[in-house]
């Protein structure tokens, strides 16, 4: 049992955690489920409190980091739940395979990717991570093990995909991969002046390109509300593989947060106006898909008080209007974000009962933690999202109300039946009042 090194990526809230490490999938540590609830913990990349369990124990599953089988002909991989996506890519890319879905960081575990049913810049083509999970094995607190897939224990499978680690411990999973020709990607960046231009660009680009995402200048107002840069990319063939940009680190906390009103304004202005090369250019997949992985521990940029992420999805019909309203409120509040990301989710259905992605527009931002001011702003945003019939991403949340959660996830009662009575989390106690 140890404390200290367990926390969430946003570093808010900060609460001491107790953890038990797991290294073998054949046996759980003695007496693990005897007292208090447990919550599986992977690589700590969830932003808020969905990866914390202050009232019980964390079950550190990062030690379950073994591959089990890799079939380079069929393109399937079985591995333990603590393996990082970056480790999978290091193994399979040289053999011509890639993960069909990856989030904006490769430093997440397979278990975490399933439990949050993560999505990527190619959601409109390939759906969520859970769509590509062929099977998994789940360990429940009563000691039973369950093989789950779309056909075996299908209801438990649907609850576990996107189930926030609450349905039991994922021991291992088998994934489908997709072929790629090289490590290179071809990328095109286009500037857009407002949300209408974004919608038009996106509609066309989603037809033509596998990966699409937009960065938005969240401080722009008026006619240029929602201006930004649209990035479209595809895996590319060819022998010339672009060099990976050098890695950076943030080894200590800066004495004051580097993110403040002035730096935000400057960054957003300069980034919008940065020179954009015309036409296609080649990039290494790591630089295109995981730009922030370049700076390890970049979360320290926000100082010791941490930051809050906010990612919502709103239905496509009135999508740009709602996004405009959200951006307007954020811009008016003067607090804002370096990385405001806008993307259109496609129609491929997520397999999870509690999965976040659904057809619509998704907006993600991070806010330096300024206490009540930030919390009030996010509550205001929640009101807009609830009215629009949208949802907020639990993996990035540290504060949504129980009512908001129940509106975002109307099937939560159906999900609750599969929650393991021995498992809980800070988030779950907050939004569902569940577990000890």
């Amino acid at each position, binding site marked *: 049992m140890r404390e200290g090194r367990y926390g969430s990526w946003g570093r808010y809230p900060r609460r001491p955690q107790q953890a038990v*490490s797991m290294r*073998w*999938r*054949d046996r759980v540590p003695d007496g693990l489920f005897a007292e208090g609830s447990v919550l599986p913990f992977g690589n700590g990349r969830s932003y808020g409190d969905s990866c914390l369990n202050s009232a019980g124990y964390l079950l550190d599953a990062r030690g379950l980091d*073994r*591959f*089990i*089988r890799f079939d380079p002909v069929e393109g399937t991989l079985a*591995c333990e739940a603590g393996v990082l996506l970056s480790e999978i890519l290091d*193994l399979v890319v040289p053999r011509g395979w890639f993960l069909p879905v990856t989030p904006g960081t490769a430093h997440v575990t397979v278990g975490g990717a399933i439990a949050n049913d993560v999505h990527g810049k190619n959601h409109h083509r390939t759906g969520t991570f859970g769509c590509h999970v062929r099977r998994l094995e789940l360990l429940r607190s009563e000691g039973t093990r369950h093989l789950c897939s779309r056909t075996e224990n299908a209801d438990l499978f649907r609850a576990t995909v996107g189930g926030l680690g609450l349905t039991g411990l994922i021991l291992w999973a088998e994934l489908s991969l997709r072929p790629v020709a090289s490590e290179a990607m071809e990328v095109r960046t286009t500037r857009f002046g407002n949300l209408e231009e974004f919608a038009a660009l996106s509609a066309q680009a989603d037809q033509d390109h596998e990966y699409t995402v937009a960065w938005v200048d969240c401080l722009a107002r008026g006619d240029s509300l929602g201006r930004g840069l649209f990035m479209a990319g595809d895996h590319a063939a060819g022998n010339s593989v672009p060099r990976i940009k050098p890695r950076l680190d943030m080894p200590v906390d800066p004495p004051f947060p580097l993110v403040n009103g002035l730096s935000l304004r400057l960054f957003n202005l300069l980034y919008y106006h940065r020179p954009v090369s015309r036409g296609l250019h080649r990039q290494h997949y790591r630089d295109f898909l995981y730009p922030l992985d370049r700076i390890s521990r970049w979360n320290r940029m926000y100082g010791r008080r941490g930051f809050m992420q906010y990612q919502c999805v709103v239905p496509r019909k009135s999508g740009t209007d709602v996004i405009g309203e959200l951006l307007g409120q954020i811009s008016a509040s003067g607090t804002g974000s370096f990385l405001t990301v806008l993307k259109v989710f496609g129609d491929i259905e997520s397999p999870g009962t509690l999965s976040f992605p659904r057809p619509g527009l998704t907006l993600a931002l991070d806010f330096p933690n300024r206490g009540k001011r930030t919390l009030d702003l996010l509550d205001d945003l929640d009101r807009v999202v609830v009215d629009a019939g949208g949802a907020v991403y639990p993996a990035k949340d540290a504060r949504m109300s129980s009512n908001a959660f129940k509106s975002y996830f109307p099937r939560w009662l159906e999900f609750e039946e599969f929650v393991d009575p021995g498992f809980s989390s800070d988030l779950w106690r907050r939004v569902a009042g569940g577990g000890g």
Partner: protein
Amino acid sequence: MRKILIVGATSAIAEATARLFARQGDCLFLVARDEARLVAVAENLRVRGATEVGQATLDLCETDRHEQVVAEAVQFLEGLDTVLIAHGTLSDQKACEASWQRTRQELEINLLSTLSLLTILANRFEVQGYGALAVISSVAGDRGRQSNYIYGTGKGALNIFLQGLRNRLHRSGVRVLTIKPGFVDTPMTAGIPKGALWATPERVAHTIKNAIERKRDVIYVPWFWRWIMGIIRTIPETVFKRLSF
């Protein structure tokens, strides 16, 4: 491509080192007590690039079976050029102080089983005229301390044995590497609070692999333990006996 026997292959340091060997396509033969865990480790090494991975389940205190298991390894690997011995337990000092039986058990697993293996392997390597024997000892063998001198006794005796063996085998071209880790964050040390001196199994593994390739004799991992233990060894016994650590 090396032909490597790894004893105690499910220990955290051995597993981390084996992954480095696997990545360069070596052939591996794994020995450990727990069958299910051995299978998990072997599968992983195959996926990570090991050319062949064989395995045998063995309680290392059964020294009668050592000869046979080494023969199995040689047959599977079609030869043998490198051995990493990594099994062991962190003795419960208080329990050992209270019981000779317990003390003897600890010495059997941490010392005698290793000497048995080394006897068999040294003779084989001496005849073939090449090979590397890498053995995980500990800084605890450098000086006896009240808090862990039973564990230290095993490791200290092992260090002397390895010195003699290195001296004996030098002329036949066989290398003997003594590995002295300091504090390593592994399941064996799960109960101990961790400070700045602690190293990860991955870091220790890299050092071990490099030391085997560079034909080193004695290494401390991380390196600064050479200096720490150097100082600890120079404290006069009249002073040392009054200290409590």
